[in-house]
């Protein structure tokens, strides 16, 4: 079965970046509709009308920047995957974005090919793992965070670990012999119990609880 086309919206204040990205996205096999916005406010206006599968956000934008936009999208459109494009890759900054619920992080000095990989990854697995991500999560793993969380059931921990191994929902359901719907149920329970917004948060959580090691 051919995977559904991914609709992508992108927001960046530089016209040339937008035009270039649209061109590039056009060459990605799985990408469907692409729409552009010059800042967060325009993007939200677009999304109120029709939602995409993923958005690519620049951080530094006038009127409404990437961080604020990210918060709003996470609140209003939790099913939309978010990829952040930024020049600043400090661990503290990235962790802040993880808190907001961003799914993947791309650096503007990376290879543009990575955009395709990242896009597919956040849509399929709810997160994108790269060096930036690893470094930020590793740093988060060292700090002593006081978490309030209810105990996770064994099943939930199982699912958590599989998620951390970068398996897609389909693969996980198949391995555990459960339906995808059940999987998503479990996942939303895990999210509520751990208080994170998406798989990215889960990975960080698992690191902090020493359930996995980098």
């Amino acid at each position, binding site marked *: 079965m051919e995977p559904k086309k991914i609709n992508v919206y992108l927001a*960046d204040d*530089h016209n*040339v*970046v937008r*035009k*270039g*990205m649209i*061109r*590039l996205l056009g*060459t990605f096999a799985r990408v469907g509709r692409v729409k552009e916005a010059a800042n967060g406010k325009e993007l939200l206006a677009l999304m109120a009308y029709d939602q995409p599968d993923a958005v690519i956000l*620049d951080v*530094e934008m006038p009127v409404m920047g990437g961080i604020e936009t990210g918060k709003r999208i996470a609140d209003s459109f939790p099913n939309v995957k978010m990829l952040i*494009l930024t*020049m*600043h890759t*400090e*661990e*503290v*900054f990235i962790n802040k974005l993880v808190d907001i619920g961003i799914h993947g992080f791309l650096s*503007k*000095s990376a*290879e*543009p*090919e990575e955009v395709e990989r990242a896009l597919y990854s956040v849509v399929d697995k709810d997160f994108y793992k790269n060096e930036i991500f690893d470094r930020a999560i590793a740093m988060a793993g060292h700090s002593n965070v006081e978490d309030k969380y209810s105990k996770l059931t064994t099943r939930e921990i199982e699912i958590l670990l599989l998620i951390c191994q970068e398996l897609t929902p389909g693969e996980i359901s198949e391995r555990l012999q459960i339906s995808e719907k059940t999987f998503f149920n479990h996942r939303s329970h895990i999210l509520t119990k751990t208080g994170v917004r998406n798989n990215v948060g889960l990975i960080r959580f698992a690191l902090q609880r020493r359930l996995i090691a980098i």
Partner: protein
Amino acid sequence: MAELSESETIFIILTSSAGMLLLVGAIGIFILFYQKRMFKMRLKNIETEQEYEQNMIKAQLKSQEQERNRIGADLHDSLGSLLWAAKINSSFIQRTTDLQGEAKKSYDELIQILDQSIESVRRISWELTPEAFQHIGFSKSVEKLCQRFNQQHLTVSFTEMGTYNWNNDDAIHAYRIIQELVSNSIKHANATLLNVSIQWMENRLLIFVQDNGIGFTLDGNRTGVGWWNIQQRIKRLNAQISMGIPPTHQGSRISIIIPLAHGTEKNQRVLG
């Protein structure tokens, strides 16, 4: 002139002499008090002048910092974005065109140029503004600085004794001093080993920048803007700087002692 009687003469002499003595006494006392007051005023003037000078320097350094931040951020964000757009477009070209021969070579070079440009932008803007200094603090920033300067012919190492979370304005000054010293050393000293070591003491910070290069010449290198910057920042921090020879007898070693506002013991317990 009419004749004066004896008693009158005596009287005149006595009173005028007494008068003179009183006058002299008065002058003496007047001079005494006046001089004291003048001296106090002069001291106060000098104090005010010094304070003014200090404020001037403070403002200068602050504006320098702000300028750097502004330029760094601007460079990073604007130029960075544009170069990224260039890379995107080149990626598009590669995906949609089958490049052969000279065209491919040209394309490859183009990519290289773009990569180098991006790297330069990052490096320059990082030198201007250390990333997230506020967040990661002094120690981490210095460590990153050392990592950055590590090169083929030069090993830059960083050692730290104790820990302390230092990230205020003074910390930036100290960071800049180290930045300047390290880059000076790299430029002039022809060293193969460079070590930056910081030690957190009770209420001071000790910094040692040591290399195994050609050592210092007492003239020459001391007059540039870089050194002036260092001197001003040292003054600003009420710190002391001294230059000497390391225990290995080769190269140079610069020691800086910076007094810290509050003790570092408390922080050590929390973080250590």
